[in-house]
Structures are given as C-alpha cells and as structure tokens.
C-alpha cells in the first residue's frame, strides 16, 4: 500500500499514531522539519511580527501600542512623496535601459556562429563582480572633476564634464547606468537560454510562408519569448522597487534626497537615527510597499493571463 497518494482505505477504522509512524509519517516529518523550522523562524514568524510591529511604537527599550499612528505618520512624512517619486523614476529608467537592450543583445548573440561562449562570458562578467566593488569603482569613475574617468571620455567626443552624482538631476540616471551594467548580463543569459528553446520548425514554417528576417523575429521569436518577457518584466519592477545598495553606497540618498528610495527610507526609520530608532514606522512602510507590490503583481498577472498562451 503506497502512502504518498491518498487512496480509499480498505478498512474504515481511525488511524492511530502507531499507524502514522508505520506509514512513515515520522520520517516524513523529519524530512519536513528543516523546511518548517527554517521557514517558520526566519520567514513566517518575522512576517507575523512585522504585522504586529507596524501597530506598535518601539525602540527596543519602550514598546507601546499605537494603532494606525505609524501608518499615518509614514503617509504624512514629507520624504515619502520624494521616495516614491525617486523609486518610480529609478524603476522607469531601469526598465528603459535594462529591458530592451538585453533582448536585442540576446537575439544578436543567438545568431553568432563562432566563439559563442566568448560573448556570453563577456556579457555575464559584470554580474559576477561583487556589487560593492562595482559601486565603489563606479563612484570613482563618476568623479565630477574634469580628470574624472567618464568626464575625460566625454571630453574625447567633445562633451563637457558632467556632475554625475553631484547633481540632483543626474544622480539617479548615474545610479541606473551602473545598476544596468551590473545586471543586464543576467537578463541576456536568461533570454539567450529561452531563445535556444524556440523550436526551429516554427522558423522553417515561417520561411515557407516567405517571411523576411524581421518578420520572423516579430512573429516567431517574440511570441515564443512571451512568457519569459512577461516574467522578467514584473520581476524587474519588483526588484527595482526595492533598490537599496546603489543609493546607499553611491550617495546616501543625496544630493538633497534626490536618490532617496523607499527602501532607503525604511532603513533610515529603523537604523538611520542615532537614537530612538523607529521600528514601527519602518515595518509600516515595508508592509505598505509589500501590499502595493502584491496588488500590482495580481493585476499584472490577471492582465497578462489574457494574452498568455497557457
């Protein structure tokens, strides 16, 4: 009698713990224990706790229940609109730079006949560089003086020195450029792998119908890639909504809060004040962000289900 599929019992008597053990219930539980314990302590419990803490005010020394006060003060914080705007701006720019370019790159790379591996390695190399190293290096490359590396390069093509991180206008784009550099390679590889999975018969069939190269891309390649394109889109949005490392290390949220993102704001609430940290507001804002992303994902999947093949 197999134990892993429920099946109609031959006898209708109540199962005893001995039965359970005999059926392998104990060993199953043992296998499940790591999952339950680790997820329980480090995932489910903290989520529950976050819910609780968002209704409390605490700095670990004194704790009190404050109802919706945390949410109210978070929503009233003049820094919140700034953070929202900045985060949205970052996500938008990252999408503009980091979504189509890897796709184009991957399609071109999939046609390479020799030295295929070299292309992949070069594209993925920036992904392997530890993000902290990349940011510290790029911070130097973004030196606003005329001797700064990027400014010198701009000088070769006759463009003036840019303030890069020292200007409220250019700080965010600078961050996006580095973030794209560091992440595009991963997206290229994902697309490349998906491209390899496109059944060649489809191309053959299209050619029989007299399709040009461009039509083949438009009518065969892209639709076949639809699934991965949709998923990377939403994953990118969710990821960029939580950007922390680049603003923190490059500019600390400056200049004048021009690169303050939601996650940086949460960090400031919880860990950024030298005294009296406000964990309640931090968790409140985290929850609001989580709810927003969840709702957005739901809407997105509803919408895309309409035009998804499955």
């Amino acid at each position, binding site marked *: 009698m197999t134990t892993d599929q*429920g099946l109609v019992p031959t006898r209708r008597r109540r199962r005893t713990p001995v039965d359970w053990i005999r059926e392998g219930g104990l060993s199953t539980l043992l296998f499940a224990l790591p999952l339950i314990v680790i997820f*329980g302590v480090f995932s*489910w*419990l903290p*989520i*529950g*706790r976050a*819910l*609780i*803490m968002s209704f*409390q005010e*605490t*700095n*670990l*020394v*004194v*704790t009190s229940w404050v109802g919706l006060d945390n949410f109210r003060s978070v929503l009233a914080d*003049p820094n919140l609109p700034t953070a929202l705007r900045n985060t949205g701006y970052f996500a938008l720019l990252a999408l503009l730079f980091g979504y189509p370019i890897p796709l184009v790159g991957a399609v071109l790379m999939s046609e390479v006949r020799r030295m295929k591996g070299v292309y992949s390695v070069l594209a993925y190399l920036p992904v392997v560089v530890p993000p902290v190293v990349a940011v510290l290096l790029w911070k130097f490359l973004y030196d*606003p*003086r005329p001797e700064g590396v990027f400014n010198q390069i701009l000088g070769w093509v006759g463009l003036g020195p840019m*303030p890069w*991180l*020292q*200007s*409220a206008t250019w*700080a965010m784009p600078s961050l996006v450029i580095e973030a794209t550099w560091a992440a595009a390679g991963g997206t290229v590889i994902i697309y490349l792998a998906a491209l390899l999975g496109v059944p060649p018969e489809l191309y053959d069939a299209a050619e029989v119908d007299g399709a040009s190269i461009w039509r083949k891309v438009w009518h065969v390649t892209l639709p076949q890639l639809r699934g991965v394109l949709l998923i990377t889109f939403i994953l990118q949005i969710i990821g960029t909504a939580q950007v922390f490392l680049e603003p923190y290390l*490059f*500019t*600390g949220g*400056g*200049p*004048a*809060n*021009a690169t303050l993102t939601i996650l940086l704001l949460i960090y400031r609430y*919880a*860990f*950024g*004040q*030298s*005294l*009296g*940290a406000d964990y309640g507001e931090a968790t409140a804002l985290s929850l609001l962000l989580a709810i927003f992303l969840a709702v957005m994902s739901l809407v997105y999947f509803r919408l895309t289900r309409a035009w998804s093949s499955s």
Partner: protein
Amino acid sequence: MRSLTKPTTAVLAASAVAIGLLSACSGASPEAPETSPDDTTSTTDEATSDTPQDVTLRVVSLLPGSDQAAFDAFDERVTQFEALYPHIDVEAEEYEWKATTFAAQLAGGTLPDVYEIPFTDAKTLIENGQLADVDAQFHDLPYSGDFNEALLEAGKGPDGHVYAIPAKSIYGVALHYNRALFDAAGLDPDDPPTTWAEVRSAAKQIKDATGVAGYAQMAADNTGGWQLTSATYTRGGRTQVAEADGTYTATLTNPGTKAALEFLKALRWEDDSLYADATLNWGTVNEKFAAGQIGMYTSGSDVYTALAESFGVTPDSSGLKVADYGLTAIPNEGTDSGVLVGGTLAAVNIRADDAVKDAAIKWIDFFYLQPHLDEGPAVENAQVRFDNGQPVGTPVLPIFSREQYETSLGWIEQFINVPLENMTGYTDVMFDQPVVGEPSASTQEIYALLDVPVQAVMTDQNADIDALLEQAQTQAQSLLDEG
C-alpha cells in the same frame, strides 16, 4: 482525503499566525533590564568587595583602518593598564561613531562596556535608559570635583547622577588649512584668513593658482548640519532657542544660516573653489584633505590627531605632510557670534554589572583622564604615543581647568611632535573665543535635516535657499514639538 486536508490547512495556517503573534508579543517586550534613571534603589551603592573578581572589560580602541602603529600604541597602553589591575582583562574593538550605525549597535547590544558618544547624544540615551548609572563609582574618583562643570553637565541625568564622563576631544570648531597649497598659491601660510571674506578670496586664489579646491564642506551623515550650525554660530545666528517653559523653538531661518549657505553657494557656483562632493562626511573630508585635495575646511580643532592616526598624514606622505598642516581660528563675525564646542563622553553599557562598572571607571580614569592630572601617567602616555609615532600634544579644550591643561602640556613638552608652531592661529585665541554649545534638543535629527539644504546648495545652481530653510524650519519645529 480532501475533507481532511482542508481543516489541516486551516489549522496549520492558524497556528503559524498564532505562533507569529505569540512570539511577536513576547519578543516585543523590552530587551534591556528594567533599571531606569530614577531608580535610586539601584544596586550601584553596594560596597565594592576587597578582593576584586576577575572581569573582562570590552572597550573601544580606534577608528577602523587606523595605522598599525596607532593600534600598537593603544595595545601598549592596554598592557600598562592590565599590569596595574591584574584582575581586569581588556578586550578592545575598533569603533567609529556614525549616526547611522550607532542605533543598530545600540539595539543589537553589540556596543562594548565602555564606549564613546558625542555630547549631543548623552541626554537622549540617558532618558531612554540606555546608559549605566556610574555616579557612585564616579564620586570615588579623588578629582571628581575638579571637572569643568559645563562639560560634566552634558553627561548627567535629570536626577543629577553622572552617566557619562567627559573623556576626550573637547573641541571648538576651527579652520584647517594646507600650508603647502597656500605657498603654491602665493598666500602667506603664517597669515591665514581671519574673516569669511578672506576665506573666500584665499579659496579662489588657491583654485586659480593650483587647480585644487580651495575650500570644502561636509554635507552628509549629519555632518552637513553640524558644520552649518557651526557656521551659523560664527555669523551670530542660532538654530534653536530654549523657551522659558522648557520647550524649544527652531530658528533655522535666521540670517546667520542663510549667510552661511550663500557663502557656500558663492564659492561653488561663482568662484568654483568648493570641493564639489556632496557626499563628504567627517571621515571622507579628512581623507581628501590628507590627500592634498583641499585647501581649507572647518572641523573640530583636534582633528589633527585623527589625520595622523588614521588618515595617513606623516612627515613624508605623498599628500599632506605633517609640516604642511595649519590650524587657525574659525572666523567670527558679528555680535553674538561664537564657536561651536562639543566633545566626546565615555559611557558605560547599561548591561554592565557592578564589577564591570568598577573596571570601566578604572579604565576611563587610566586611559582618558589620568594623563591630564598626574605627571607620571601623562609622561607614560606621551612616551608610548611618541615611541609609536603617534601625535602628542594636539590642542584640545580642557576637561578640568585651563591651568591644569597647561600644566599637563608642560609635563609632556619633550614628547610633543605636532606642529604647534603652525597652529598658533588657533592656540593663541582658543581660551578667549566665545563658546556656544551644540543645540540641546533633537540635535542629531536636526543636523540630518540640515544636510539637505547644504547638499542642495552644493549641487543645484538655482537652489532656493529661503525655500530650503523654510522647509527645514517646519520639519525641525515639528520634531521639537513632538520630542
């Protein structure tokens, strides 16, 4: 089996949530022990036993990344201390007070037994019950009555007990300059600027002649607000007023602050002589200065010690050399102008028990205070530092009295290796300058707010100073009102 899985699911889900709630509730109770500042029946009055038990004392040493020689000097002092008190085992940790990481360390309980805090934090920490009451141990010190009262006040709680002891780096903000750059620009290094207009023209001259930024301003991690407040004081303004009824009023739109921001704006956009980096904080501005990239900047008067210990200023460094360092008084203009003073207190972790508190006071006494009071320890300390090539004799404001300070300088005269002759601009007037303490309410938070106008002025040519100050004013006032 379907009918069995449904309740199972529900039960599992419910229990997970319940467990979450339970643990959140229990975990939310205060971590720290229940002692509060007003608990006069605390156990600190227990008589210390005659046979001291063995104690491990965790103390702070130096900034992360400081020179090995500096660490060696520190380790020697530790050895001397342990020889004196064999029952105490000292463990040292690198430490840097940064507004952004201190909270995490405090919450995490990872602060050592003895650590350093700026004056600005002491009152709040005491109110939050996060500092140990060391009043009894403090009064056991024979010289407890000799402290400069104003400084001691910063570390006292509302009950008048001492929670933190003035320890080091009592500074007034001063102007630091690179003599070599002055030379290269045709300025006289022995005649540094004494007014803000002179600072501006000197900065321009340095920039035009050498291409190096003539002036720099800290702008991030609350240091922007700190220096802006100092600049405000020197122009006769104040950022905060204490009302008679115990509340505070923010006065960020005063003419002094505005003038300070306009000064920065002019240097940045008209003269192009300001070091264009709005992410500079206390550490990185020191780094750039030590690398020879800045002509002048303002910071605490004792920064030279850090420059030599941690930022690579040596007699033959490729950037700023020892002989190129110059210190002069910050320009003071207008009525009511003054120099911002602050300092560092030594505090004891709230989790310390009596044995640790005893050991802590002994360490504070030995390491921070004795060199000011007794010739023996002063010479010993100076000797160790001198032998390890560490700076001896950096001018600081006295913890006790001016006479005591000058006497102590006399003891260690033979070891003084800082270029005092290049610091006369400051040392000549340091005791006569009018001093103003840092603002007392919500200090660090308002500093953080003020970082924004400073950064804005440095990065946006069309920054509207009035609007920025108005905004900061509103936010600061609401902070003061709820605090």
